[in-house]
């Protein structure tokens, strides 16, 4: 034991100050932002949007416990969200009835039960599906999602048929003096559980199981030879990921006071995957970026354009092809570049690249918007900034072609500049 006592390893491990700066401080800042937001007097629309963001942040991060941290590609994560949400809805109604033990249960704590329901669903479904990783796991998750989604339309007693289950959150005992009636009070509920979810999932990455999850992702065979069963590691991580998804489900149940079987379908599962991936699965905070951007796109862009799903698709494909580390990779890469040896050259390259992408995007938007209107046949012309761009106007097509070409050239140039710097 003497070597253990005398060897000084403190230079090789993060100091307490570093730990605080890199781990605790970002979480405190995140919490401070959430606390500060109501001071800006947000509108109803803003509240609605932010609540959905909070739910999606927890959901996308729970998904990344599987994809980013355990290397498990799931196509059915909405299932655990759905079970958490449905259970919370039922309990909400039991609270309203005031029957038995549930009469005294505060609605504010429903996410705890959502976690339990999601974890239980994960424990049941994960038992057969976590035996294999890779393609087998992905296919099983897809099958299970389809199975549960169709089951949800069959068993009306639990799932409430097509109109789902609805309830009223303003029952039972209050916590923190919140009636949860007005939307500004629901905000505190969402903010609280978003922080709890993010902090909880971060803490999980610091545990032995969290580390083993990464080890199993990197090299399941070697994990066996350090005394651990990779199947069991996957299974336990799967249960936790299901739990946090269920927590998000209960947040959603309290926020919307309704859950329908649509929540289980493949659409939401795919959207979760896209949120996490666009945000950046190699970073713990990546899914936060993705959840914020995609929730915004989902809620706001449909007001601007009929083609928003097409833009979503283009965004997803571009990220997969050109920025596989996602938005977080772009943001942190930018920061690292500015702190690098040649910040000026880096910035010029970066701006060239950005200009190129913006030009190509303009070309794409003009093309899509003209095409959508043409195809709809209402005779309405796309007129950005009062400039009418009809499909019969050669100028429109010239604009599409020129901006796409110029954008392409700029991006190419930026790529060459980057190569020269490397």
């Amino acid at each position, binding site marked *: 034991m003497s070597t253990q006592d005398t060897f000084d390893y403190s230079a090789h491990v993060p100091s307490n100050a570093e730990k605080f700066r890199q781990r605790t401080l970002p979480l405190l800042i995140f919490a401070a932002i959430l606390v500060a937001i109501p001071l800006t007097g947000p509108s109803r629309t803003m509240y609605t949007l932010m609540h959905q963001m909070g739910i999606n942040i927890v959901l996308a991060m729970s998904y990344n416990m599987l994809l980013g941290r355990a290397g498990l590609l799931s196509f059915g994560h909405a299932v655990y969200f759905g079970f958490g949400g449905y259970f919370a809805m039922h309990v909400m109604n039991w609270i309203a009835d005031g029957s038995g033990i549930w009469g005294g249960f505060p609605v504010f704590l429903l996410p705890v039960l959502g976690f339990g329901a999601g974890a239980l669903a994960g424990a049941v479904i994960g038992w057969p599906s976590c035996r294999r990783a890779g393609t087998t796991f992905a296919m099983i998750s897809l099958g299970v999602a389809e199975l549960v989604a169709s089951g949800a339309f069959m068993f009306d007693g639990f799932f409430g048929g097509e109109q789902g289950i609805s309830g009223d959150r303003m029952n039972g005992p209050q916590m923190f003096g919140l009636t949860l009636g007005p939307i500004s009070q629901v905000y505190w509920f969402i903010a609280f559980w978003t922080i709890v979810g993010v902090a909880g999932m971060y803490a999980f990455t610091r545990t*032995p199981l969290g*580390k083993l999850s990464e080890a199993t992702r990197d090299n399941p065979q070697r994990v066996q030879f350090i005394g651990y069963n990779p199947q069991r590691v996957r299974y336990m991580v799967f249960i936790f990921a299901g739990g946090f998804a269920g927590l998000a489900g209960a947040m959603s149940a309290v926020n919307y006071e309704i859950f329908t079987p649509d929540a289980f379908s493949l659409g939401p599962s795919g959207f979760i995957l896209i949120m996490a991936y666009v945000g950046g699965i190699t970073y713990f905070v990546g899914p936060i970026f993705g959840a914020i951007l995609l929730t915004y796109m989902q809620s706001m862009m449909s007001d601007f354009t009929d083609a928003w799903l097409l833009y979503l698709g283009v965004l997803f494909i571009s990220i997969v092809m050109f920025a596989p580390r996602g938005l977080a990779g772009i943001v942190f890469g930018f920061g690292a570049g500015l702190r690098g040896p040649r910040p000026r050259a880096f910035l010029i390259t970066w701006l060239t690249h950005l200009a190129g992408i913006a030009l190509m995007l303009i070309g794409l938007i003009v093309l899509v918007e003209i095409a959508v209107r043409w195809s709809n046949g209402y005779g309405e012309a796309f007129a950005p900034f009062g400039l009418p761009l009809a499909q019969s106007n050669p100028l429109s097509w010239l604009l599409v072609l020129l901006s796409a070409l110029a954008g392409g050239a700029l991006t190419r140039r930026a790529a060459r500049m980057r190569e020269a710097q490397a």
Partner: protein
Amino acid sequence: MTLPPALSIRGLSKSFGPARIITDVTLDIAPGERHAIIGPNGAGKSTLFNLISGLYFPTAGSVALNGENISGLPPHQINRMGLSRSFQVSNIFTNMTVRENVRCGVLNTMGLGYSFWSNIGANKTAHAKTFEILERCGLSDKANVPASLLPYADQRSLEIAITIAGDPDVILLDEPTAGMSQSETARAVDLIAKATEGKTLLIVEHDMGVIFNLADRISVLVYGEILATGTPQEIRGNAEVREAYLGDEALPEELA
């Protein structure tokens, strides 16, 4: 009463379809012995390791660790019973730092199991144990380097570090010096000798210098069968072995 052999292999055979890779191997390795397995390419040395460590299921025969039957058990259980192995091709956790790699190997002996309620970063004993291993393997100044960026020789050291991190009684090393330069090999032999002190070692190696330096006894595996087992002196003097495998020039001058 005498101690049971650290490793006792009885009539072990493995076939893949019609191909017999290992045929009726019987071998006892005493506690604390350093035993080398040599043999030409394709003799079944790695297969033998995979059978002992639980990666493959034997077609026939059995393996006992400290008197307890381990054949048929999954690898992680065999590992928990005190047998650890390294791989011929570096088999590390590529996206983690060197420190995290070794710390993963330490978890099990710390009794941490699949724990999800404790903060590993705050575990002083795990830190100390990790750095003790890193120090022993000459890796402590590279503790925070991502494992995938390590130079080859250091990756091989890390391979050994992960293998010994769990404090095993029996250590299986599969060609630990493969692909190393002479000076790197010398350092690796040093490391192996130190790291396996007081432990039982089973080592597959091609470098005869390494083996004749390190091993108490040697087994020669040819076409899945043990041709001979004995001390380095006996093996060197064995005409059959010379013919089958060693060749005169393979023996280091100073030992021949």
